[in-house]
């Protein structure tokens, strides 16, 4: 606006039609960074605008957009001199923020997880197909460690996905200025005291919540049952639709939020229910009340629920597979999904259970049989079928076989006995 005044009052002669000026002007004339600069530059791309002048701090993310010349400026006088043609601002090359140079998110290596072969397997399946996974087990069993190791398994994002994620992070003001367009999917782990608004987004100036910040990545809710139940329930919409809808007086705003839910919690207040050779001191009612903190509809949306127990022999398993080995399998199976259907298996619709996607008639018959034998809902069977598709992808199989389905079904959420 200051620039417009200068131009309009004739103090500065410049063509503002092809330039966009982004930033907050401080009283002393310096330019302050703003959240969402990247989104604004991205919006400018494809219009007449060829040049963006941005605060220095917003430079790298803005340049990463490409297609628009980005010139960072430290203060207003630099901007004026540049526009007047007195001293040209330096052009920031998009190449300086080359993709793939950034390190992968900091995650514990799977090799450091002792035992838990079933948990590791489930993590591999869930990350590959982007299925919602919960680890349930007593304190100290390694739920959190295993879940965090999942961050290291996430395959890199496609260019357009990375741009989408970066824009959201830029708007929220959480983008790392030094890594403007990280190819690695986000792994968000909000604390359980988080408010509903902070989890799903909203507020007077709409800000993306953790659900959106985890878009294309993982939303890890450690101690899931300690979260506010209204906050947990608010995740149902985004889990189903992949977007957060925020209704306001002036309309409905949709923020992308297609995340994989990773949950971890104790099976009961004392933590030891169901673990052989250890005693649970909780009453049946207390166990049920505790588990009911995750509502039925939310439980329905979990694809894999893995009870973890301390196992029998901790130090007799030899060296476990490293993250690098498992991540390679995950990446290959992720490519298989992209090639077949252009999206993850978690996004398969019920109508996609067809031969084209590897679901033959015998398998669908088995699906129906298991449903009747085990008293499972149609929704549960659909979810199990998607997980089975991922297990087949990990096995390099174009067809989903009965053992894939049975493995998937084993990891369904189980109700406490009546």
């Amino acid at each position, binding site marked *: 606006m200051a620039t417009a005044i200068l131009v309009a009052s004739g103090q500065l002669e410049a063509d503002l039609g092809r330039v966009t000026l982004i930033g907050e002007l401080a009283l002393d004339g310096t330019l302050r960074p703003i959240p969402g600069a990247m989104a604004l530059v991205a919006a400018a791309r494809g219009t007449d605008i060829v040049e963006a002048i941005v605060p220095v701090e917003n430079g790298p993310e803005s340049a990463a957009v490409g297609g628009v010349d980005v010139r960072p400026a430290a203060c207003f006088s630099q901007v004026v001199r540049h526009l007047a043609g007195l001293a040209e601002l330096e052009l920031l090359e998009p190449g300086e923020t080359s993709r793939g140079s950034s390190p992968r998110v900091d995650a514990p290596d799977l090799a450091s997880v002792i035992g*838990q072969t079933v948990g590791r*397997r489930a993590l591999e399946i869930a990350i590959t197909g982007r299925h919602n996974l919960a680890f349930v087990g007593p304190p100290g069993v390694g739920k959190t460690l295993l879940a965090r190791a999942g961050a290291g398994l996430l395959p890199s994002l496609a260019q357009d996905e990375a741009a989408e994620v970066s824009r959201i992070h830029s708007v929220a003001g959480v983008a790392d200025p030094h890594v403007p367009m990280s190819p690695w999917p986000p792994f968000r782990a909000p604390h359980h005291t988080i408010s509903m608004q902070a989890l799903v987004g909203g507020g007077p100036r709409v800000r993306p919540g953790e659900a959106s910040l985890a878009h294309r990545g993982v939303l890890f809710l450690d101690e899931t049952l300690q979260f506010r139940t209204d906050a947990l329930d608010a995740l149902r919409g985004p889990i189903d639709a992949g977007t957060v809808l925020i209704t306001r007086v002036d309309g409905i705003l949709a923020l992308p939020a297609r995340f994989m839910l990773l949950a971890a919690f104790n099976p009961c207040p004392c933590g030891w229910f169901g673990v052989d050779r250890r005693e649970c001191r909780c009453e*049946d009612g207390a166990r049920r009340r505790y588990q009911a903190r995750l509502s039925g509809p939310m439980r329905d949306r979990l694809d894999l629920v893995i009870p973890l127990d301390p196992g029998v022999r901790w130090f007799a398993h030899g060296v476990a597979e490293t993250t690098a080995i498992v991540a390679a399998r995950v990446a290959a199976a992720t490519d298989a999904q992209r090639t077949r259907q252009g999206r993850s298996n978690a996004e398969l619709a019920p109508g996609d259970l067809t031969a084209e996607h590897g679901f033959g008639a015998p398998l669908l018959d088995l699906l129906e049989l298991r449903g009747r034998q085990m008293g499972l809902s149609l929704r549960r069977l659909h979810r199990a079928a998607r997980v089975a598709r991922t297990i087949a992808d990990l096995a390099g199989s174009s067809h989903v076989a009965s053992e894939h389905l049975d493995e998937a079904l084993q*990891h369904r959420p189980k109700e406490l006995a009546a």
Partner: protein
Amino acid sequence: MIGVGAGPSPMTGALRASERECWVALSLVPGIGPAGFAHIVRRHGTAAAAWTAGPNGLESIGRLGPGAKDGLATLRREGARSVVRRLTERTAQAGGRIVTGLDDDYPLALRTLDPRPPTLFVAGDGTALTERAVAIVGTRRASGYGLATATDLGDELARAGIVVVSGLALGIDGAAHRAAVNAGGRTVAVLPSPLNRVYPPRHRGLARDIVRGGGVLISEVAIGAPVGRPDFARRNRIIAGLSEAVVVVEAPDRSGALLTAAAAITIGRELYAVPGQIDAQAARGCNRLIADHEAVIVTSVGGLLRQIGLTRDRKPPAVNTLSEVEAQVLQRLLDRSGSIEELVDRTHQPPASVASALTLLEARGLVNTFGGATFHPTLGARRLGGVI
């Protein structure tokens, strides 16, 4: 409280009431338990005489608990006939009927109790109360082992044609009832609450299934009786009374199931207890019953059946042949229950194979987790034990 300010004038109502009506009305007086009731009726000759004697006649006996006087006054104001008519209606609405110690269908097993519950409220097929019955009781803080054992016992007893009696509580009780219903057997649930308020509420569905399966819900508590703590002690006495034997499956110290065990000893029923690990809190009550020679130890389901004079249903279930991994997993579970992780360790099979094998075994009803991490073989699997 029953009938405040409704009904005909006290005298006409009271005078025309029958012995049965007076009996029911008298049993509704708060503070008069089975012992007090028996004493009063013995003193006055009949319930009608006691009822007519009024508060002074009853007070002289000196056995009335607190609240009895007011309660009696309220009931007398409405009149026995009206009180019983309304209670009969409300009981019928809950699907039940009133059975008094005067009636022919009063359970034979309870007739010999002294004192016996004067009035019962029964829903379902009353013939279930005339057959051979065994009680299965235990803790609400049940372990997977306890639930598996209660399920096995309930299933086997039901298949052998024995009525399974229990208290409909969460945990062991519920598992025993459910197993009997699922096996197509009959089971009797003795409620600590009125018929229209199934306690615990979570077991409402189970209560419905029990009645549908030809079983019975029975309670000593009248509909509309003052809401207090559910009366577990009196409930437990009826459980023991209805059964020829009581099996305590899993009970920590001070468990309610131990009260049922004590009642069984007092009224002369056979008492059995399932042993548990010596370091398990949940098994301390059972282990002590065995150590103190108060209960006979149950070492196997078949052994218990033999001890109460039954032969076991040996028909193996129709199960197709199992794959190698499935058979291996099941064999390990028959050796000892365990989690998937342990089974991976014990079979040296990959987690994927063990998981899919377990699903198939679950689908065929050969293993069960009861919602926990540990897999237990079912009775069907044990019967199959010799085959694989």
